[in-house]
């Protein structure tokens, strides 16, 4: 969903946005650069770095958005990305975005940034929420202590961000150095002496990271520090461990927090605004409640189904496919093509049974677009409300059974939007085992928005029994495979510690931009692939390969799955994009070519079917070609196997939906 990094000319300097997760770095980024990156209300929305630029009195500043961190001592992949940016972009100004409600945690990062010696400006964001809750710290004292500017902002309302821009070019490092006590201080200075003369960030910060046992610095050490110094560093750390135990980072954090607590007490808070009843927080509480949580979840699912399945896939598709395309676009295109293009083959390529307009565009625009459009909108509301992390609380225990924890529900749910993006989001998980399991389950069982919408549209025509059966089978398969994978894949699972953001009313502006950005991304990425898929089918049909392929796959498609031979086409284009395959099935079902049972069998099969090309490429990028190939080799036969099992069982028990 993000374009390539914009080329920035005449850069006067770089500004790195750093801060805790879900404090609004991406909103600030958007305001500074005018570029939109996805903004949501849950920790971990940003997993990749985005770059943009802002102008200040004719000079251009490059702005870098980073994933949120709890500490600059990285504990997960996305945290490491941020720390590495700070290491790799020496000389940059850091704009720390703080959560005004949670200054205690924000200042933990500020202290570390001060130790790194980077020029620093603080944006104390969500000042409105902090004032409303009566916890807004007085910022003058804060500026005095850190000797850097601290600007209160409400980024989503565009308040305060303008004031930051002129401060960036004059930013200076904070001189603040926290005292960690004799023994640790001694080790820090010994460690500092072992570091090379030029370091990308302050030596004190590096020394503390090394003492805390940060093994993610290994590559940097290997390149920049002589082997004997590395040995010496280990000796320094080991001596400190002998003296005070190996919980050094904990002691350091504890000292930082103690200092922050006394600072905050000293600063004092602005007087609270009058409080009304906060309905959003009441909803937030009930959505995690053991009693009300499940009914609320079911209600959310029901509303999503009504909006995407019934309104989007039913009503809107009818209007577009039968109305706009059926009555106007296709006849008009056929009429034009008949009269302007003399070559039969080109005509067929455009408006024939496998034509670019008649098949690719009508699938992409008339069937999939209304479905993904409604889905993106509904999903955006869920993302921005802060409901998604609350789901993690509800399902933590189930996810423990599949070797993950509740946190894994975030990428899984995002997979319902796009499996490709969700595969990137697995970076928020802490161990490789969890990342591999979730990546596999995404590729196997989580239908992306386009596919899901098409599937819901087909199921809603048949009735609730088929929908429940489909959901049950897919969830069952996910749990079964997850359980088995957790036994087979080596490694360990991590602790479930997840920050739950406050429930917020989605901002209409952000919702509109986000939905439009995603629709644009869909059109850009999907339509060309739809066209390519159609051309392949067209060529295959012309050459007679299609019949041949149908014959070859007959034992599977017709024999094992009891589907009409034409469904082979749907599976074939499903290799390119799963939603395209599903759209093919949708078309067949509407034409009355599939019985209810055949719909269920084909949908189960195409849902589990191998991931789309883009998803596959991202799996290779994140997990390596070997893992990706292994997954594909497992998923393909497995999908067919489950489809055949459903087909067989339904026939034996006489279930025809």
């Amino acid at each position, binding site marked *: 969903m993000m374009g390539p990094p914009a080329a920035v000319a005449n850069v006067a300097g770089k500004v790195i946005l750093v801060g805790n997760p879900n404090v609004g770095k991406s909103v600030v980024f958007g305001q500074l650069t005018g570029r939109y990156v996805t903004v949501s209300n849950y920790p971990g929305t940003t997993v990749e770095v985005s770059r943009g630029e802002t102008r200040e009195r004719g000079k251009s500043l490059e702005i870098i958005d980073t994933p949120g961190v*709890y*500490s600059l*001592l990285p*504990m997960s992949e996305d945290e490491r990305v941020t720390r590495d940016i700070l290491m790799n972009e020496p000389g940059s100004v850091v704009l720390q975005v703080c*959560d005004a*409600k*949670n200054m*205690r*945690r924000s200042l*933990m990062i500020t202290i570390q940034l001060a130790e790194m010696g980077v020029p620093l400006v603080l944006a104390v964001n969500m000042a409105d929420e*902090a004032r409303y*809750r009566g*916890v807004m710290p007085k910022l003058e004292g804060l500026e005095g202590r850190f000797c850097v500017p601290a600007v209160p902002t409400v980024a989503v309302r565009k308040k305060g961000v303008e004031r930051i821009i002129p401060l960036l070019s004059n930013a200076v490092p904070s001189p603040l150095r926290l005292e960690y006590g004799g023994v640790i201080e001694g080790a820090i200075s010994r460690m500092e002496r072992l570091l090379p003369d030029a370091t990308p960030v302050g030596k004190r910060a590096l020394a503390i990271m090394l003492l*805390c*046992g940060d093994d993610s610095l290994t590559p940097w050490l290997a390149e920049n520090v002589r082997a004997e110094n590395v040995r010496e560093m280990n000796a320094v750390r080991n001596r400190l461990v002998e003296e005070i135990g*190996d*919980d050094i*980072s*904990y002691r350091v*954090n*504890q000292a930082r*927090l*103690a200092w922050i*607590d006394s600072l905050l007490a000293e600063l004092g808070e602005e007087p609270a605004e009058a409080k009304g009843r906060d309905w959003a927080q009441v909803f937030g*509480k009930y959505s*995690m*409640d*053991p009693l009300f*949580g499940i009914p609320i979840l079911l209600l959310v699912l029901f509303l999503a189904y009504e909006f995407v399945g019934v309104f989007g896939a039913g009503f809107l598709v009818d209007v577009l496919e039968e109305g706009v395309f059926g009555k106007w676009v296709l006849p008009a295109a056929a009429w034009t093509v008949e009269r302007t293009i003399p070559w039969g083959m080109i005509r067929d390529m455009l408006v024939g049974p496998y034509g670019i307009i008649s098949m690719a565009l009508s699938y992409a625009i008339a069937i999939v677009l209304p479905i993904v459009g409604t889905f993106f909108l509904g999903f955006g509301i869920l993302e921005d409300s802060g409901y998604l*992390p609350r789901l*993690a*609380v*509800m*399902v*933590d*225990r189930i996810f423990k059974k599949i070797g993950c*924890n*509740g946190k894994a529900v975030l990428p899984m749910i995002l997979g319902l939007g796009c499996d490709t993006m969700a595969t990137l989001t697995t970076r928020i998980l802490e161990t490789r085992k969890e990342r591999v399991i979730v990546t596999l389950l995404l590729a196997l069982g989580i239908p992306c928005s386009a596919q899901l919408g098409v599937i819901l549209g087909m199921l809603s025509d048949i009735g609730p029994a088929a929908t429940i059966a489909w959901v049950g089978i897919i969830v069952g398969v996910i749990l079964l495979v997850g359980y088995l994978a957790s036994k087979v894949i080596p490694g360990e699972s991590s*602790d*479930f*510690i*997840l*920050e*739950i*953001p*406050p429930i917020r009313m989605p901002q209409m502006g952000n919702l509109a931009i986000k939905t439009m950005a995603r629709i644009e991304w869909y059109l850009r990425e999907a339509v060309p692939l739809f066209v390519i898929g159609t051309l392949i089918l067209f060529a295959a049909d012309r050459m007679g390969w299609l019949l041949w392929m149908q014959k070859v796959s007959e034992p599977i498609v017709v024999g094992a799955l009891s589907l009409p031979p034409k469904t082979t086409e749907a599976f074939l284009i499903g290799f390119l994009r799963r939603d395209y395959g599903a759209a093919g099935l949708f078309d067949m079902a509407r034409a009355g070519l599939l019985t209810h049972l055949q719909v269920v069998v084909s949908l189960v099969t195409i849902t589990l079917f191998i991931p789309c090309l883009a998803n596959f490429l991202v799996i290779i990028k994140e997990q390596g070609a070997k893992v990706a190939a292994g997954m594909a080799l497992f998923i393909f036969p497995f999908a067919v196997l489950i489809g055949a099992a459903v087909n067989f069982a339904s026939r034996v028990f006489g279930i025809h939906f």
Partner: protein
Amino acid sequence: MTDYGQDEILELVWTLREEGRATRSQLLRRTEEDQPERLIEELAAAGLVESSGDDVRLTKPGEERARVIIRRHRLAEVLLNNLFDLDNNQVESSACKFEHILTKTVTESVCTFLGHPPVCPHGRPIPRGECCDKIRTEIKPLVTRLSDAVLGEEVRIVFITPKSRKRLDKLSSLGIVPGSRVRLLQKNPSFVLEIGETTVAVDKDITDEIYVKRT
């Protein structure tokens, strides 16, 4: 050191009585003291035990003294076993030392700290102390696991005994360290804490490792 020897004998008499085998021969067989016979004589002379034939009984003052020793010993066992997860040998040898040195005030504090536990880790009853009586109306111990805290009540973290360093780092970066004030919001379907204006969902076993005190 003779006092310690006497204490050990008194303790053993109490334990044997619980087992229903309070005889002089059992006492002599089980004791680890060098001169048990002499110790028994001393205790008898001090009016703490009565002995006739194979029979050994605690007198009223002896009963009182043994009760205090047993109480300290078993409270120490609970402390070392439940709180610090020490192994059996460690617990036993340390508890044996504790029983002699804890003052009355310290014993009561430990008892309150642990929530007036009724039995030791071996399942034997811990004699009640004055603090246990006084506290009748207030059942909650002074220090509890966060997982046992009253829902919605603000508590202060006293100490954390985590399984891994990584977990400790993660908690501390969220501001969860001794001295922090937290509130347990719910226990089902997962544990949810509130710390300042932050809401965090965590595993139960993490909240088991966080010890808190009511504020």
